[in-house]
């Protein structure tokens, strides 16, 4: 940023004097520790001054909201037009159980839905698969067929409420169910809105919910992007996610770099494979970040992400539509920052993380419940988490003005520094031949493993603190009520599935699956075939088994 010569001279002089004072003071009272760093171990200086940001060009580096490079936000009017979407992630037990939680959330002011599926659904197995043993309905809702999906959407106005679905390898199947459910309710595809996570690269890197190898996985994603572009224009067909990368133990810079590099890989594939113009589909790409406990690091990460993506889209891909330059993102507070010990402290952590996300300019937010480290969240815990967002939006005043921390020597400097470090990673991955090649080498996986191990060692050494765990621990227990999923959920779900299989037209299902297999082999877009199959009540696993058969299965290489 431009400072007058006089200001810079004054600053240099005063800073030198201050440094002198610091030295004097330290001689008498040494600092509590030698090194001060973020939770990601990025070293932070004692003081930032105008010199730290004197090189930043105002119009190219900072600018105004709604204009390139979007450091200060995509929306010209900030949060005054509308707050971020209060979008609480929810799912447990049967479709009916989850539907009840959704109605409770909508009644309490939740603005958009977000679906947690159970592990068999996430991995493309039906509830009666031997692989599903013990998992049904535990971490989310169990969905096997369109009938379950219709029960999930019961009473939900699909033309007005947007729905996010955290689903990856079987994203085509669940999205097909959503499309079929909308049609059943008489809502045209052009009217539905929502998001499928559908980001497989971060699965190989971090979350480990995978099915087919990377190459065909990306191909299926490109199919959804193409289908959305042509038929479901208000759908975000990918939510390019850093959240899970961070939860797996990455640093904030790694989260930023790997996420944006994943985004580049998807854009390249759609252009190459589908021949679409970048501006046709780029405006529907969305992102998903973690908001961890290190307050300023998170704010800077989000600001840097917007500026970097704008540059990537404009300069690397030549996108012309300003909407293509927008990095729109959802945020979730950091599950891995929460502690099982003294769980009520988690309310405080989540509030601070949510505040960082808002100051970072998120468009959508999930706040974790205090009990999520122990079990599925209770109604009461979810309500506190939702109220946390409402308090930030409507009581604290932080939404009054846009990007209130802009211009801070520290915030701008840290934003620049994180961006520079993230570009280094992106260049390194480019040199490896892209993200799929990097994943095959184990590069991002091992970078994350190193960071996770380093943090754990710092924790063990007391260099990093988790209150209630390695400091201020006490033996007294804070008891909280726990939600448990009854084992009857599994029995009932399997009975429903059996019943559907008995009633449906099996010949039609067979034909649908053959058509889908053919589409997989010939490179035709799979979406219309998936929609046809789910309408005839093909199960999720039957469709995924086609993918496994045609594309093969990916196995975790077990790197550590």
């Amino acid at each position, binding site marked *: 940023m431009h400072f007058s010569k006089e200001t810079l001279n004054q600053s240099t002089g005063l800073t030198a004097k201050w440094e002198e004072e610091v030295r004097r003071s330290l001689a008498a009272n040494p600092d509590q520790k030698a090194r001060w760093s973020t939770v990601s171990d990025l070293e932070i200086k004692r003081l930032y001054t105008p010199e730290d940001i004197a090189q930043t060009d105002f119009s190219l580096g900072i600018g105004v909201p709604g204009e390139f490079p979007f450091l200060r936000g995509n929306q010209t009017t900030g949060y005054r037009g509308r707050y971020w979407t209060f979008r609480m992630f929810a799912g447990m037990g049967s479709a009916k159980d989850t539907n009840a939680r959704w109605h409770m959330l909508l009644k309490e002011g939740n603005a958009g839905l977000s679906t947690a599926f159970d592990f068999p659904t996430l991995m493309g197995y039906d509830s009666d698969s031997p692989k599903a043993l013990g*998992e049904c309905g535990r*971490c989310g809702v169990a969905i096997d067929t369109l009938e379950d999906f219709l029960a999930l959407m019961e009473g939900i106005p699909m033309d007005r409420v947007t729905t996010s679905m955290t689903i990856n390898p079987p994203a085509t199947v669940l999205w097909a169910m959503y499309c079929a459910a909308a049609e059943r309710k008489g809502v045209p595809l052009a009217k539905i809105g929502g998001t499928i996570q559908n980001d497989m690269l971060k699965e190989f890197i971090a979350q480990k919910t995978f099915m087919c190898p990377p190459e065909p996985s990306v191909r299926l994603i490109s199919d959804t992007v193409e289908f959305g572009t042509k038929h479901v224009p208000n759908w975000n067909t990918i939510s390019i996610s850093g959240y899970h990368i961070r939860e797996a133990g990455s640093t904030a810079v790694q989260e930023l770099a790997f996420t944006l590099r994943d985004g580049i890989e998807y854009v390249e594939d759609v252009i190459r494979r589908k021949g679409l113009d970048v501006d046709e589909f780029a405006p529907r790409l969305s992102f998903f970040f973690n908001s961890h406990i290190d307050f300023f690091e998170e704010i800077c990460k989000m600001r840097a992400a917007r500026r970097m993506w704008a540059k990537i889209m404009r300069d690397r891909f030549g996108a012309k539509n300003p909407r293509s330059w927008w990095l729109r993102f959802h945020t979730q507070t950091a599950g891995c920052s929460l502690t099982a010990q003294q769980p009520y402290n988690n309310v405080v952590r989540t509030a601070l993380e949510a505040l960082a996300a808002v100051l970072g300019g998120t468009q959508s937010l999930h706040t974790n419940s205090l009990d999520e480290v122990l079990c599925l969240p209770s109604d009461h815990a979810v309500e506190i988490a939702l109220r946390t967002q409402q308090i930030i939006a409507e009581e604290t005043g932080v939404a009054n003005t846009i990007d209130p921390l802009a211009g801070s020597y520290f915030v701008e400097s840290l934003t620049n520094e994180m961006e520079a470090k993230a570009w280094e990673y992106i260049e390194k991955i480019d040199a490896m031949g892209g993200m799929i090649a990097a994943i095959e080498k184990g590069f991002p996986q091992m970078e994350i493993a190193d960071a996770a191990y380093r943090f754990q060692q710092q924790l063990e050494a007391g260099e990093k603190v988790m209150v209630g765990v390695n400091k201020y621990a006490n033996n007294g227990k804070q008891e909280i009520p726990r939600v448990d999923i009854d084992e009857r959920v599994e029995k009932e779900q399997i009975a429903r599935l059996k019943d559907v299989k008995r009633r449906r037209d099996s010949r039609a299902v067979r034909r649908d699956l053959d058509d889908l297999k053919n589409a997989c082999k010939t490179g035709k877009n799979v979406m219309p075939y998936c929609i046809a199959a789910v309408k005839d009540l093909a199960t999720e696993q039957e469709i995924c088994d086609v993918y496994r058969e045609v594309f093969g299965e990916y196995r975790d290489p*077990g790197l550590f």
Partner: protein
Amino acid sequence: MTSRKIRIMVAKPGLDGHDRGARVLARCFRDAGFEVIYTGCHQSPEQIAAAAIQEDVDLVGLSCLSGAHRTLFPRVIELLREQGAGDIAVIGGGIIPDQDFPRLYEAGIKAIFTPGAPLEAIIDWVRTNIKK
């Protein structure tokens, strides 16, 4: 004395992909001087038992954060016993509620470590309880 190192297999049964804890622990065991095998995510109890026997390990460390530990941990022990390998010790970790401890101990799990357990405590447990 040329006694071999303690051999440990870290394994993740079921569909859960939360492998941060398992991977950190695997590395920490290796740094502590044990021999470590990590079989990766999404292993069935059958695969885990077979690998443990084939690799002739002294200890299996199971990690699960999805809630399926109730079913999957005891199943691994059952399979080991069926195949005459009941001498392989099995410990567990993850998001495991207190009320599940008794049924897991009863099933034969030797120790349970939950979030926040210091790595050193886990290593100490291994050194004290596992004989080569």
